[in-house]
């Protein structure tokens, strides 16, 4: 039996194959990817119109608005993480594949981050301008958003896996994920505010990094367990 095991494709091939397949699917259906991004951009551009053009006020509320919009956009995109696979039966095939399920779940989450989190990070500088954010703060904001969206994708994959068998699980998914996402939001928004006020902000970056690493090491296992439970 051992030599039989050795001939199986390696762990990394499962990771890359799942990520690659999901990226390919996203490429063929760009609408699904663009939706959360549009949402993010719309919230961030409409907010200044509603509260008025006072530069001081916008500068003050900018980090918070950007971060809340990023969190909600990520939540919006999470629902579909496993839904397509659940509906066409490929989730069942993943569950009976000889590859470790946490690795496959990580592959899917990686693809999710690349198609939802990363675009937000890349678009955010353009939106930051509308809030007259100083140029020196923009890279810091991008870094916090990057670490934050990694955590959100990973934590969100647990909720998406738990609610995949339920109809209209979106509200439940948000409820499940929000408590876990709250530290990310607080750390992210406050770090950017501190950086904008020329305060010491590095602690926030470290904390966000630690949160991302903790999610990275624990979330795939939780997601795999949740997938098995919700597919019973």
């Amino acid at each position, binding site marked *: *039996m051992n030599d*039989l*095991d050795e*001939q*199986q*494709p390696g762990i990394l*091939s*499962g990771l*890359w*194959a*799942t990520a*690659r*397949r999901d990226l*390919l*699917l996203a490429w*063929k*259906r760009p609408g699904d990817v663009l939706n959360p991004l549009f949402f993010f951009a719309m919230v961030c551009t409409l907010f200044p119109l509603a509260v008025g053009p006072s530069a001081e006020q916008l500068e003050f509320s900018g980090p918070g608005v950007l971060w809340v919009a990023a969190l909600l956009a990520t939540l919006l995109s999470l629902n579909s993480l496993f839904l397509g696979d659940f*509906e*066409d*039966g*490929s*989730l*069942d*095939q993943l*569950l*009976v*594949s*000889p*590859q*470790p399920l946490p690795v496959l779940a990580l592959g899917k989450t990686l693809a999710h981050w690349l198609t939802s989190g990363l675009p937000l990070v890349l678009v955010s500088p353009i939106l930051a301008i509308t809030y007259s954010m100083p140029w020196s703060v923009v890279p810091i904001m991008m870094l916090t958003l990057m670490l934050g969206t990694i955590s959100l994708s990973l934590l969100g994959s647990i909720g998406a896996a738990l609610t995949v068998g339920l109809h209209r699980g979106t509200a439940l998914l948000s409820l499940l994920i929000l408590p876990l996402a709250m530290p990310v939001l607080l750390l992210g928004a406050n770090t950017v505010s501190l950086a904008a006020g020329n305060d010491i902000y590095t602690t926030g970056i470290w904390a966000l990094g630690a949160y991302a690493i903790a999610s990275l090491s624990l979330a795939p296992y939780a997601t795999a367990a949740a997938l*098995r439970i919700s*597919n*019973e």
Partner: protein
Amino acid sequence: MRLRSATECKALTAKLSAENLTLIRGERCLFEGLGFALESGGLLLLEGRNGCGKTSLMRAIAGMLSLETGEIFWNDVPVLRQRQTFHGSLVWLAHRTGLKGDLNMLENLQFERALRRQSECDLESVYERLGIERLKKLPLRALSAGQQRRVALARMLLADVPLWLMDEPFTNLDREGRTLVMKLVEEHLGAGGLCVMAAHQDVDINAPLTRIRMQ
């Protein structure tokens, strides 16, 4: 044509057995005290009316449902203790094909190749035999249900595994396709493979047959 030379020697010793299986879904007991033993070359046929638990039993064998009592063994070792080895030894043709409608046939099969050990047979000859050699570049959603099922069969044939789990393999297939499936199963069993099949139709397969009639 021989498709499965690599499996042959390894599958000779394979054995799938189950003891005292009981499954309760909701308030309903689907089966109780069910057991079977299937050796290389054997076919296990699950029969029964709609909703009697054939698919549930199949899912339980694949290790996706937790059973009330009983255990399933692969080569006399409980499946739950060697999940990865067991899953590396089976391929499951489920009711839903598990193929992506947005991807074409080659992309779908390529994904499978990264997950499971593949047999070293000639790809083109497999495609030709299943009559799907002209469909390679079309997105799967453009194919008919029967053609999609043939692609799922290709995935099954290309995997180098001893155990085939087939849930209603004849769905959507034409008469020719049904004969082909039976022939493929017969060849697989002849080469020392095992097959568990849930079917409504009568199957005409020349192999040691075990029937489970579910209530």
